[in-house]
């Protein structure tokens, strides 16, 4: 008997029942297809201004730095100023994302940019994100041809450009947006990797002292583009 049949058989024997009936399976299937949210905490709710403030407060609480810019054209200058102001390297790897790499990077003479996945010597990455979650100041990044996962982990310094309209209250709202964006037939297919990123890399493995930059980025800077002004 294969491992699979042996294990499923052992499970059923311990549960004292045979394989579930078609009807029972239908009920469980419904649990999956309806995928109802369980309890969503109050801190994930609020009006736009409250959620944006909570996102920023929570992100800063886990050692992110946050800068708000008026529109997307200000992003390259904001990145250049941030790097210069913190005395960081100015060779930057951009995500090969059409929107991000389409911004006017050439106008920043200080920066030396390239696009692609991250190599071992890359020190700074700039990426977009799929969403921000106010509940815990979390960024959500999805992998794909335009969004290499290595950019989130290999470079020492990570800068994320996020639009305020991408900020939601609860994780569940991200899953709703994800299901719509990755719809396939009646269901959806997850991207290869969904990274929920809450602050820079950290460890407390030596004497329970918290240190940043254990293996991933030493810092995480969020450039927040205020694209909700008109609605407000």
């Amino acid at each position, binding site marked *: 008997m294969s*491992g*699979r049949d*042996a*294990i*499923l058989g*052992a*499970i*059923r*024997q*311990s*549960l004292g029942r045979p394989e*579930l009936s078609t009807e*029972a*399976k239908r009920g*469980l299937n419904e649990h*999956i297809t309806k*995928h*109802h*949210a*369980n*309890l969503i*905490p*109050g801190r994930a709710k609020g009006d736009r201004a409250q959620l944006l403030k909570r996102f920023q407060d929570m992100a800063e609480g886990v050692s992110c730095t946050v800068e708000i810019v008026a529109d997307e054209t200000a992003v390259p200058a904001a990145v250049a100023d941030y790097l210069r102001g913190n005395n960081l390297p100015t060779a930057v790897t951009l995500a090969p994302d059409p929107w991000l790499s389409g911004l006017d990077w050439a106008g920043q003479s200080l920066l030396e940019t390239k696009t*692609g*996945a991250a190599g*071992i010597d890359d020190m700074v990455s700039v990426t977009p994100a799929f969403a921000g979650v106010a509940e*815990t100041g*979390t960024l959500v990044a999805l*992998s*794909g*041809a335009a969004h*290499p*996962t*290595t950019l989130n982990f290999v470079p020492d310094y990570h800068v994320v450009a996020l639009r305020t309209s991408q900020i939601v209250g609860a*994780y569940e709202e991200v899953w709703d947006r994800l299901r719509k964006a990755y719809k396939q037939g009646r269901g959806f*297919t*997850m*991207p*290869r*990797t*969904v*990274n*929920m*990123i*809450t602050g*820079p*890399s*950290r*460890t*407390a*493995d*030596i*004497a*329970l*002292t918290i*240190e940043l*930059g*254990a*293996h*991933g980025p030493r810092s995480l800077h969020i450039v927040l583009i205020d694209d909700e002004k008109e609605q407000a």
Partner: protein
Amino acid sequence: MEFMKPGAFKDNASNALADENLRSAMAMLNAGMIPNRQGAVDRLPEFEKLSQRGRELKDHVLGNLDFYLERFERNCKAAGGHVHWCSTAEDACQAILKICRSVDAKTVTKGKSMVAEEIHLNQFLEKHGIEPVETDLGEYIIQLAGEPPSHIIGPAIHKTKDQVSDLFLKHHAKLGRTVRQTEPPALVNEAREILRQKYFDADVGITGANYLIAETGSSIIVTNEGNGDLTQTLPKIHIVITSLEKVVPTLEDATTFLRILARSATGQDFSAYTTISTGPRREGDVDGPEEYHVILLDNGRSAMLGGEVNDMLRCIRCGACMNHCPVYQSVGGHTYGTVYVGPMGAVLSPALLGVSETKHLPCASTLCGRCEEVCPVSIPLPKLLRQWRARAFEAGDTPNLERWGLWIWAFFARRPWLYGAAARLAMRGLAWLGRDNGRLRNLWFAGGWTDGRDLPAPEGQTFQERWRKRDRRVS
């Protein structure tokens, strides 16, 4: 270092109590972990309700485990992944070896995985000529030291900063790092720089999984360092080693657990990195693994289902029970001699290894109940510990002296008048012995207890006498 054995618990404990380094390391655990968790719980008013929902979800999954595992397998395969069902530790090791050999792997990087510890994967890979490189800082430290983990989320929690300094100098000197670093930032940085190239050189990356999602066929890891992500993104193959009970129905259900896991474990609102992985790299992707394998390990879990220790399968491996256990706090994790330690280990290990092998572990508890209070999925750990004690007694694993003691106690307990008389006699006798200063320096039948402290002497009356005198009123 030779693996400590669970059968040597009592000797291990004596040695641990005399170990100054261990005492200072464990004191930091007490000062940090307990208030951190409490702070995180206090910041989320819905914590109890979320815990309750988590408990219900786990019970629901366990009752329908076959369905959710089959659904997970179907969706994992649909996304291009491979699922390997392994009944035993040996099956799991062999499956991993086969995958490693398919790319002629020389080195394997590893994220933190308790299931990998459970199957002793590192020793197995080394025996077959493959070098496993632990990348979680705590795991890396104990790999250098040749020790097993002493805590399920902080594997090197028993090591002081000075011990880490010595260890790094000893092992890194040959790599040109001849300066003994003494501060955590420099130590963390040294490990970071040494491990960096390893991620890029490894042929296979192995991680654990905190959850599997049936709905999407995905695995989830929750980490703070980012080592798990480098481990699973850079090599050609990503292997996930995990066990049956980790499956949850939907993304929303996983989210409920994510809200209680970090808060219970480290006292963070959310860990730095929560990563959901589904299958291998997609068309057009410029990074990510080309193959994605999930090793589904049983190793005794299917036999626990529906039985006396069924509730233990709800465990989400947060470590809160050990952080709050007065026995664990005193003796540390190595004393247990098993991979899983503290209260959860004392319940799980007898189920995985047999009660005869591990009979001391369920006794290593005062049954104070703090573990159950802080367990985010309400596992009745004290009740399960008592059950294992009863099983050990039935199996004849209890030492004779203890059996006689229990027999004598039971003889009196069944005869209340005799019990009362004996208790009165004993209380008066002890009061007389301690009449000088109200303390007993040593008792011939409880030397192990009085060696380390004095016993306050009874005042001469039994509880029942005083209870009657107060007219059975509490105040």
